[in-house]
């Protein structure tokens, strides 16, 4: 798979159809008692359909706030946000739920799986909140998603019976089960060892190949180097936005890792 179309710098996003994410003048301020914290100060950003974007920055730089707003989990204080052609700030609570359900997938650093609930049920969860599916189909879709992340054998395990990497795979299966257009991953490898991290990134690259836009927050430069575009936040502003002409491929890196592991 040498010619996998991981989008790299040079392929101009603007030349394509309308961007999946378009943000203009986005601001977010928190009031903490007397102090007002400006988490985002007039951010302008476009993300094209099919991009693999890494966002990094120091803690408090606004990157997480930005992700939460992209994910319709938090509302901006000001500015415009268009997600897949819809103006998010005009949506009601229920419509935002619908956006999260149909268009978005989330992967968190702390996995955020429901404990005491099997992997399969965790993956089925987004399907349960839509009314246009049949329970039997939900089951099939969830199983397929788990097989796709390599957990076909552990569908009835509970999160506490799975390793961190496996739990994150369940979370990825959950994020992709509703065929989203955009997957948001907030430090998905933050709690994982190197090998698991690369495997997880590999899954994201696989999803990206299928056309799903991926936005990944990380503070690890080597993880960011798997992405086709790197955006750096500082003090609520985008300070760097650059293309990576030759992103790493997880499959290659894993192959390099294997012999080293065998020696050790």
């Amino acid at each position, binding site marked *: 798979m040498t010619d996998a179309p991981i989008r790299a710098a040079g392929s101009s996003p603007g030349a394509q159809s309308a961007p999946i994410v378009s943000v203009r003048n986005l601001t977010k301020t928190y009031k903490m008692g007397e102090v007002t914290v400006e988490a985002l100060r007039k951010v302008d950003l476009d993300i094209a359909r099919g991009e693999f974007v890494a966002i990094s920055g120091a803690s408090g730089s606004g990157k997480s706030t930005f992700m*939460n707003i992209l994910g319709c989990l*938090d509302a901006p204080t000001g500015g415009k946000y268009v997600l897949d052609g819809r103006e998010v700030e005009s949506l009601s609570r229920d419509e935002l*739920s*619908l956006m999260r359900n149909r268009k978005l997938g989330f992967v968190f650093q702390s996995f955020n799986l429901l404990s005491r609930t099997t992997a399969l049920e965790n993956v089925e969860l987004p399907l349960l909140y839509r009314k246009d599916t049949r329970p039997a189909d939900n089951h099939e879709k969830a199983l397929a998603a788990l097989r796709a992340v390599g957990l076909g054998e552990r569908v009835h395990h509970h999160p506490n019976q799975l390793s961190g990497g496996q739990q994150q795979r369940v979370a990825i299966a*959950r994020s992709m089960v509703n065929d989203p257009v955009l997957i948001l991953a907030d430090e998905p490898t933050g709690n994982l060892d190197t090998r698991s991290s690369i495997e997880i990134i590999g899954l994201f690259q696989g999803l990206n190949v299928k056309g799903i836009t991926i936005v990944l927050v990380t503070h690890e430069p080597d993880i960011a180097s798997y992405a086709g575009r790197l955006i750096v936040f500082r003090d609520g502003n985008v300070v760097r936005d650059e293309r990576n002409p030759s992103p790493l491929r997880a499959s290659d890196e894993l192959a390099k890792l294997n012999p080293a592991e065998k020696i050790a």
Partner: protein
Amino acid sequence: MRMSALLIIALRSLARNKLRSFLTMLGIIIGVGAVIAMLSVGQGAKAMVQTSIASLGTNVITVFPGGGSPGSVRTEAGTTSRLTEDDVEAIRREAEGIRYLTPTARVSAQVKFAGQNWRTSVYGAYPEYLQIRNWNPVEGVSYGMSDERGASKVALLGQTVVKNLFGEGVNAVGQTIRIKNLPFRVIGILESKGQGSFGQDQDDIIIAPYSTVQKKLIGATYAQNLTASAVSEDAIPEASAQIDEILRRRFHIGPSDTPDYTIRTQTEIAQAAGSVSQTMTVLLSSIAGISLLVGGIGIMNIMLVSVTERTREIGIRLAVGAKGRDILLQFLVEAVTISFFGGLIGVALGAGASTFLSSVQGWAVKLSLSSILIAFIFSAATGIFFGWYPARKAARLNPIDALRYE
């Protein structure tokens, strides 16, 4: 989200904290159980009172001498006007609403038979007294107007008198007993009436012709009261008014004056007794209802704890696309599940308690479907009412705040 899925989530969540769920349920169990037991006791008491009032007879109207209230002083019954057989005749002639009518006289007397002694009440009344009271001899016959006119020394015995005077297995009919040392022939045995409205034994009685009792046993000419029966239940007020009018005329009492006799109808007695037992039922049930309320507060309390504990779970559900309504329903279903099962166990417990009270304690208890339904609906409503606030609190959480909750 589907109802079945919500129910499974609720049951799992309750199973996760078994003791906590049980203790919360206990509030509802006790509340519902108490409501059912109390309603049963109340309704049982009411039914018992109704039966004993019905045993008074059919459409009965009773006239007592005295009992008026001149000013605020209530004179003792029997101290004023004297009701005589002439009054009886006048009423019988003029009051169209009356079917049966008899004066009655009562005397307490020592009764003897073959060395056995028994003190009982001897009632003197016309033969139609038995029709008024719907009372028939189970053995032998009643006396007739000829016995009345001839002041025959014949007697009808109640079951208690028979038991105490003759013992088991002796045919009392045809025997001669002595009442106040006068020989009376037993011509019939009355069927059992059981306990009266005030717990007295209605079978501890001897009934004899009015004239016989008045002349031979008491030596008076005035009746202790008049007992009548209206032609129908609807005619009771009319008949009662007719008696009043006739007596006012005969005793020269003006229409606005307080008469020195009292007319009581069976309807009035039933209403008075009914309102007493109604009050009792309401009182008992409201005490039981308060315990249901306390149980509901318990549900609300534990649901608030549950919402706080599961804030992160709520965040996850919101993140994957749950709507506020889905979260609301999830917690509401959980609250209602607690109250539903609490109600179910409570019904069983209340029914058990009612059965215990009636079979072991001998209370009059009436377990009705309506009281079970009332208690059950109330418990389910308690779940909805007290589950609503915590569920709404959960539904209104901000997704990101819920996800970040530690």
